[in-house]
């Protein structure tokens, strides 16, 4: 193959949004098609899956293939691209009968309660019926086709990438509409008889022929950019235009004429009869309000929840005690390396494992892991190894003091940690990081060696408290598979343990464990359960906050002000921690310290943190609880409202933490290997690497979008939780809205603050020296 040919064929471009859109559509369709195929294999045979996949492939080919790269230079390439977008992709997509599979591909509850009401909305149905009327479809297609082929419009699309995308979207949208009355995708009901379809297609072909004839026989170049473009492959602009016209004419006409002929034959054949599609009851999503006599929609297919322990390799690994030991040993080795390098390595954060591993990687990966899966860091936590050591030494005789059996101590330690991090700049002091870890080990050992249970994890560990709160929005939860099995269980091994295995050391009795609070994912309960009735099961993130049942070892959340305080500290610390690394806040601190005549920023930072972590959340929560109670006249106490609604802010806080830590991970993602090599070279294990300039994993623009999307998701989930909790206390919408409004106000204010923070220039904490590595 010639180099030119190779170059042409390798000119693919990957647009993130298109790639994501095509992939998401395919996965959604695949999931839904699998469900409806099993229920109704004759209506959804395998060829429909292939047709839809082919449609997506044609779409992908049009937009990402060399056709797109050359569309600005060759009109013929541009024409093939348009043919794919208008004549190949749309009919194939519609042949996949995508409506039902895409609907069933969505999460069941969302499809029924979220999309369902819109699908039965009379106005929307009427509008959709008018839009898919053959006359509307034909007219839309004709107008779009003619309008975009007018030279000024076509030139605009060639000059501006944005308008080019709009042009493509118009072509695709109009063509989907055009092919709708022809393909009549299930469960659409035809509005015109079958005999009209060939006429419909012939009329379209007439228009296509007119346009393509103009292109083919024109004696001048119609689109100016092609006149100026460099000529490739020995073509002239005019011959290229003629070629494009022929492409539009011949293959473009065949696309209309072949289906017209086939449909005409079908109509004229003796076996033809008009079949009105009937929607099987099993494929329907039930209406919003079901009457007594209507059968409930059945969702037997795919109703079983995902259980991580059922996944091959992963499940057995997690179940095995040795698997957990392996993870703990790995983290212990990493922790020891961090301690050694922190104590004896260079005190440059970016060149020291104690600067890079905890502050760039660990915290980001932990939060990502929590939001994507669950509290797996606690599972692998190396501090827990010392609990076993204490147990073996036989020292664990005492119970944790009753006065300290709440989260208040943990909240105080968490706030202290945030304060220390800001004031002493832990991210930039490897030796302090090393000492922090050493002290963590000592405290963990002391407490767990002396006291029974998992007192350190449950009441002391600030990292654990952070994880517990974040895991409220995790998609996985350790929970009972079949509650009926537990009802007949007499031994309660999940709590008490047995000869072979320990029970839950955090006193979580599984049948009454709701949510991830206080769960360290140690899976001791899984191993202890004689009925194999405990799994790591998929749950709707955050939905546990809406309910308030009596929880094992925790009681009702409405009575736990300490847990509410923990949640508020977690949320406000997310915003404060990110804000303190922005240039405006840093200069504000300097200015304030200067005006007060202080030589250090420490007092200013301390006061600001006190306001951000304690005073602001306490005041806002109290005011909101008071306002919502006064406005809605509900009988619940202020304390109860505060405790319940504070928890609903957790998704927003988690989103802020994730956005913030992703920034550090993005900026320093490739610094770990270099730092590791520097460390290894000091111990003469590896050669010293060359100095490198770290480059971000994704660009600043994409990161900003990702951060904003995270905040969007956090805000929306928070607002939804607030609304659901409000409905628990006040079933009437008006009262519920009064309960909702103050808390929604806090969430919106925090969201705006988050957007502002992410728009500010950020300090490269711990990475500024990365460019001048020794």
């Amino acid at each position, binding site marked *: 193959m010639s*180099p030119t040919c190779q*170059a042409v064929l390798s*000119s693919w*471009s990957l*647009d*993130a*949004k298109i*790639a*994501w859109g095509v992939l*998401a559509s395919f*996965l959604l369709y*695949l999931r839904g098609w*699998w469900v409806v195929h099993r229920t109704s294999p004759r209506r959804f045979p395998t060829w429909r899956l292939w047709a839809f996949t082919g449609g997506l492939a044609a779409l992908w080919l049009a937009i990402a293939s*060399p056709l*797109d*790269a*050359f569309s600005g*230079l060759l009109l013929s390439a541009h024409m093939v691209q348009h043919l794919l977008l208008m004549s190949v992709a749309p009919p194939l997509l519609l042949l996949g009968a995508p409506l039902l599979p895409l609907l069933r591909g969505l999460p069941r509850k969302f499809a029924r*309660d*979220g999309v369902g*009401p*819109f699908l*039965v909305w*009379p106005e929307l149905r009427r509008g959709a019926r008018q839009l898919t009327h053959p006359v509307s479809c034909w007219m839309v297609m004709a107008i779009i086709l003619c309008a975009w082929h007018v030279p000024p419009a076509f030139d605009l699309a060639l*000059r*501006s*990438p944005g308008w080019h995308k709009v042009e493509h979207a118009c072509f695709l949208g109009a063509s989907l509409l055009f092919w709708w009355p022809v393909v009549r995708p299930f469960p659409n009901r035809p509005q015109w008889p079958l005999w009209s379809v060939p006429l419909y297609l012939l009329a379209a072909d007439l228009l296509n022929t007119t346009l393509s004839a103009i292109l083919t026989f024109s004696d001048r170049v119609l689109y100016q950019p092609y006149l100026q473009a*460099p000529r*490739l492959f020995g073509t002239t602009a005019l011959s290229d235009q003629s070629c494009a016209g022929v492409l539009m004419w011949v293959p473009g006409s065949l696309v209309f004429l072949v289906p017209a002929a086939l449909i005409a034959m079908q109509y004229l054949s003796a076996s033809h009869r008009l079949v009105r599609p009937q929607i099987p009851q099993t494929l329907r999503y039930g*209406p*919003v*309000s079901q*009457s007594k006599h209507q059968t409930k929609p059945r969702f037997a297919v*795919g109703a079983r*929840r*995902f259980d991580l322990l059922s*996944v091959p390799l992963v499940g057995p690994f997690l179940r095995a005690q040795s698997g957990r030991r392996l993870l703990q040993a790995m983290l212990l080795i990493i922790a020891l390396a961090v301690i050694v390098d922190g104590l004896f390595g260079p005190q440059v954060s970016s060149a020291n494992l104690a600067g890079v591993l905890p502050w760039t990687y660990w915290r980001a990966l932990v939060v990502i892991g929590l939001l*994507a899966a669950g509290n797996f860091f606690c599972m692998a936590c190396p501090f827990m190894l010392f609990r076993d050591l204490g147990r073996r030494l036989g020292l664990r005789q005492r119970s944790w003091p009753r006065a300290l059996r709440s989260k208040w101590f943990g909240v105080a330690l968490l706030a202290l940690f945030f304060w220390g991090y800001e004031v002493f700049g832990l991210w930039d002091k490897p030796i302090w990081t090393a000492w922090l870890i050493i002290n963590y080990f000592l405290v963990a050992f002391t407490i767990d060696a002396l006291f029974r249970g998992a007192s350190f994890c449950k009441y002391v560990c600030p990292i654990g408290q952070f994880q517990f709160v974040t895991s409220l929005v995790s*998609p996985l939860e350790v929970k009972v598979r079949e509650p009926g099995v537990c009802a007949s269980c007499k031994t309660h091994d999940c709590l008490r343990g047995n000869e072979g295995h320990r029970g839950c050391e955090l006193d979580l009795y599984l049948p009454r464990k709701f949510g991830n609070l206080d769960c360290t994912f140690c899976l001791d309960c899984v191993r202890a359960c004689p009925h194999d009735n405990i799994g790591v099961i*998929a749950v709707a993130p955050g939905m546990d906050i809406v309910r308030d049942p009596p929880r094992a070892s925790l009681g009702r959340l409405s009575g736990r002000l300490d847990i509410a305080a923990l949640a508020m500290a977690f949320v406000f610390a997310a915003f404060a921690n990110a804000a303190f690394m922005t240039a405006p806040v840093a200069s504000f601190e300097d200015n304030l310290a200067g005006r007060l005549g202080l030589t250090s920023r420490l007092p200013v930072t301390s006061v600001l943190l006190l306001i951000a972590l304690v005073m602001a959340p306490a005041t806002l929560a109290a005011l909101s609880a008071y306002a919502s109670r006064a406005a809605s006249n509900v009988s619940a106490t202020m304390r109860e409202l505060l405790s319940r609604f504070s928890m609903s802010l957790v998704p927003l806080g988690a989103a802020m933490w994730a956005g913030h830590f992703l920034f550090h991970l993005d*900026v320093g993602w490739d610094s770990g290997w270099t730092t590791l090599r520097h460390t290894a070279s000091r111990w003469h294990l590896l050669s010293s690497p060359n100095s490198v*300039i770290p*480059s*971000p*994993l*994704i*660009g*600043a*623009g*994409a990161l*900003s*979008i*990702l951060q*904003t999307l995270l905040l*969007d998701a956090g805000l*929306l989930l928070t607002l*939804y939780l607030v609304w659901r909790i409000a409905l628990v206390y006040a079933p009437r*919408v008006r009262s519920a809205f009064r309960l909702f409004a103050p808390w929604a106000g806090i969430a919106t204010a925090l969201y705006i603050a988050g957007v502002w923070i992410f*728009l500010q220039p950020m300090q490269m904490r711990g*990475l500024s020296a990365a460019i001048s590595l020794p």
Partner: protein
Amino acid sequence: MKCDALVRLLPWLLMFGLSLSNARADGGVIRLREAKGPFLVTIFTAAEPVQDGPGDVSVLVQRRDSGDAILDATVELVFNAPAVSTAEPVEQLCGASGAWLLGRSSKSGQAQLTVPAFRRLASNKLLYAAPIRFGTAGDWEVEALVKHRNDAVKFACGIPVGSQPRRLILLAPYLALPPLLVALFVLNQWLRRHPLAKWSTGQQAQ
């Protein structure tokens, strides 16, 4: 079938998708088309390069006599900053992955910066491209130095770089998502509670 697992992979796929988003606007607007020496050179840039936005520059090198694309040339782009600024490679920490950020004025900065252009960086592999982010607005000048075997020819053109739109505007579609979805949710709730919707739902079911 592990469809749930597939759905759970979506966030990671999103991350993957976002990581693909390098700005490669080759084949945008033609800034220069000139025949000189044995070469016919066309210089493209993004349609409207803006400060701190993608302003990728790409070059098509053809034989002057036959018009065939030359694929083994060496192309270097020399950027001259507007009068008030100097060009210098700025720390890449905040730039797009792998992109050269041509920076704002500095006391010790150079007058110009040379950036190599490669075919592997272009979407259209007949072109030589250099992903660029202009750190300052104004009229930049770019010189393309094309070398092929014993021939070396310099081509020059100007690139007007506009001021950067505010980042808030760039994020506007994403900031509009929450109000839009809240509005849809309100409508959803209204439809679920409204008597007319319930009535029509009942009718539909019958």
